[in-house]
C-alpha cells in the first residue's frame, strides 16, 4: 500500500533521511520508533505529501506521490481523503468555532448531502464519546478532548490509512486507555495504521511491526 524506496531528505544542511526504505501493507499496524530528531515526523510528512524527498520514490497504492502529481487537484484530494493524519499537537488541526463544524469540514468539501453529513457527524460524536461537546469551541477543550475531536475530524472522511503522531502523549491515564481501546477497534476494523510513538505499551498492544529509526549522526 505504502512504499518508500531510497528516500533522501535534508533540512538545509542537516541530513534527516538517507536512502530510507519502508513498505507498509494494507491492514497492517506499523509503529515508528526512535529518539527525538531521528526523522519520524519527516517520514510522516512525506507520507502525507506535505513535503517531498530530494531523491527516491514514494508510492501510495502503486502511484507515485511527487510535487507534480500533488499539483493535480483531483489526485491530491483523493490522496488526502485516503490518508488521515492526526498531528501530535491537536491544536494545529482545529480551527472551526464548533466541534460539529470541525468534524463536518471534510464532508462539506466532499460535497456530501446535508443528511449524510448530519448522520456521519452524529456517528463520530457518539463513537468518540464527545456528544456533549458538539457546540463547544474546539480551542477551549482539554487536551484529551481536542485529541478526540481531531481524530473524529479525520475519521469522518473514512480514510484507508490512519497516521498518528504521538497519539497519546500529554493525555492522562484514563484518556490513554480510552485511546488505546479505540485504536484497537480501528485495527480490528481493518484500517491501516501508522503510529509514531515513544510509548512502549502502545507499541506492544497495537503494533504488528516496528520500524526503529537511528540518529543519522
Amino acid at each position, binding site marked *: 500500500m505504502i512504499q518508500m524506496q531510497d528516500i533522501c531528505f535534508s533540512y*538545509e544542511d542537516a541530513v534527516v533521511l538517507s536512502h530510507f526504505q519502508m513498505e507498509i501493507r494494507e491492514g497492517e499496524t506499523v509503529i515508528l520508533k526512535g529518539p527525538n530528531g531521528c526523522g519520524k515526523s519527516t517520514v510522516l*510528512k512525506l507520507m*502525507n505529501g*506535505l513535503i517531498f524527498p530530494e531523491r527516491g520514490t514514494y508510492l501510495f497504492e502503486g502511484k507515485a506521490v511527487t510535487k507534480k502529481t500533488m499539483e493535480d*487537484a*483531483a489526485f*491530491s*484530494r*483523493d490522496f*488526502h*481523503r485516503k*490518508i*488521515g*493524519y492526526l*498531528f501530535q*499537537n491537536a*491544536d*494545529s*488541526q*482545529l*480551527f*472551526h*468555532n464548533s466541534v460539529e463544524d470541525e468534524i463536518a*469540514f*471534510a464532508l*462539506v*468539501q*466532499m*460535497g456530501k448531502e446535508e443528511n449524510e453529513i448530519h448522520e*456521519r457527524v452524529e*456517528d463520530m460524536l*457518539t*463513537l468518540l*464519546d464527545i456528544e456533549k461537546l458538539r457546540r463547544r469551541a474546539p*480551542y477551549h477543550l482539554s487536551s484529551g478532548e481536542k485529541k478526540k475531536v481531531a481524530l473524529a*475530524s*479525520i*475519521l469522518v*472522511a*473514512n480514510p*484507508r490509512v490512519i497516521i498518528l503522531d504521538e497519539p497519546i502523549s500529554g493525555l492522562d491515564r484514563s484518556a490513554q486507555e480510552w485511546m488505546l481501546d479505540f485504536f484497537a*477497534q*480501528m485495527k480490528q*476494523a*481493518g484500517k491501516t495504521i501508522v503510529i509514531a510513538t515513544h510509548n512502549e505499551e502502545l507499541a506492544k498492544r497495537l503494533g504488528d511491526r516496528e520500524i526503529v529509526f537511528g540518529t543519522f549522526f
Partner: protein
Amino acid sequence: MQQEEKERRQIPGWLLLEEDYIPVTERDSFLEKTMRAILSVLAKMKAEKEYIGKNKTAPSLRIAGAVFVIVLLSLSRNLAFAGLVSVLLLVRLAFCNGRQIKSVLKGAIGAVLFSAVILVPAAILGHPHTFIYITLKVFLSVTLLGILSNTLPWNEITSGLKSFHLPDIFIFTLDLTMHYIMQLGEICYQMLFALRTRMIGKSPKKAGALTGILGVTFLKSKELSQETYDAMVCRGFDGTYPLRKRKASPAANICYGIGLLLITVLFFYLEHVSAG
C-alpha cells in the same frame, strides 16, 4: 448498562466500507494560492530564524557603522565615493551565502525600481545625473541595511540598540514582538499543514478556513502573552529588562573601526577633490 453503552459506540457501518468518492478536478485556486503564499512567507521566516551570523564585531558597532556610512553616502556629492562603497559592499556580499545574497538583492532591486520610477521625471527633464546618483545611493543604502539584517540576528540587533541608551521597555517590546512573530508563525505554519491534509474537495466557504486559522492564532497569542507574563513574574520580573552584553572580539572591533575611519578619510578626500 455497560454492554448497551459499548453497543452504542460500535464503529458505524460506513466507516468499514470503501468510500465511494470521486474528487472534483477543478482547482480551488483561491485557497490553494493563499495557502501557498502564506506557507512560503512562513518558511522564509523559519529559515531566517535558524540563521545566525558568525561576525565577531560588536552588534552596536555594526549598527552604528551602517548608519554612519548611509549618512556619508547621502552627504556625498562625488560619484567616486558611491563607487568605493559599492566595491566594499560587493566584497562583503561575496562572503554571504546564496540565500542571503538573494534576500539582500531582492530588497535592494525593489527599492531601486521604486526610486527609479519616482525619478523618471528628473531624467526626462534633463537631469540624468541626479537620476543615476540618487538611484545608486538608494541601492547602496538598502543593500547595506539588507546585509546588516541578514547577517545579524534580531536578538543581537536589539541588544546592540541597548548601547545607544534606548529605554529598556522599547527593547523589551521589540524582543517580545519578534518572539511572538516566530511562535505564532510556527502555529500558523502547523495549522496550514493540517489544513492541507484535510483539503479533500472543493471548499464552498473559501476563506472560512483561513479566517478560522487567524482566529485561533489570535486566541493563542492572548494565551501566550499571559503565559509569558506569568512566567516572567515567577522569575522575578519587576519591569526592568537588563541585557547581557555579548563578548565581542576586540580585534574584530578594531579592524571594523579602522575600516570606518578609512571610509571617512576617503569621503573627505574625495569631497575635497570634487570641490577643488
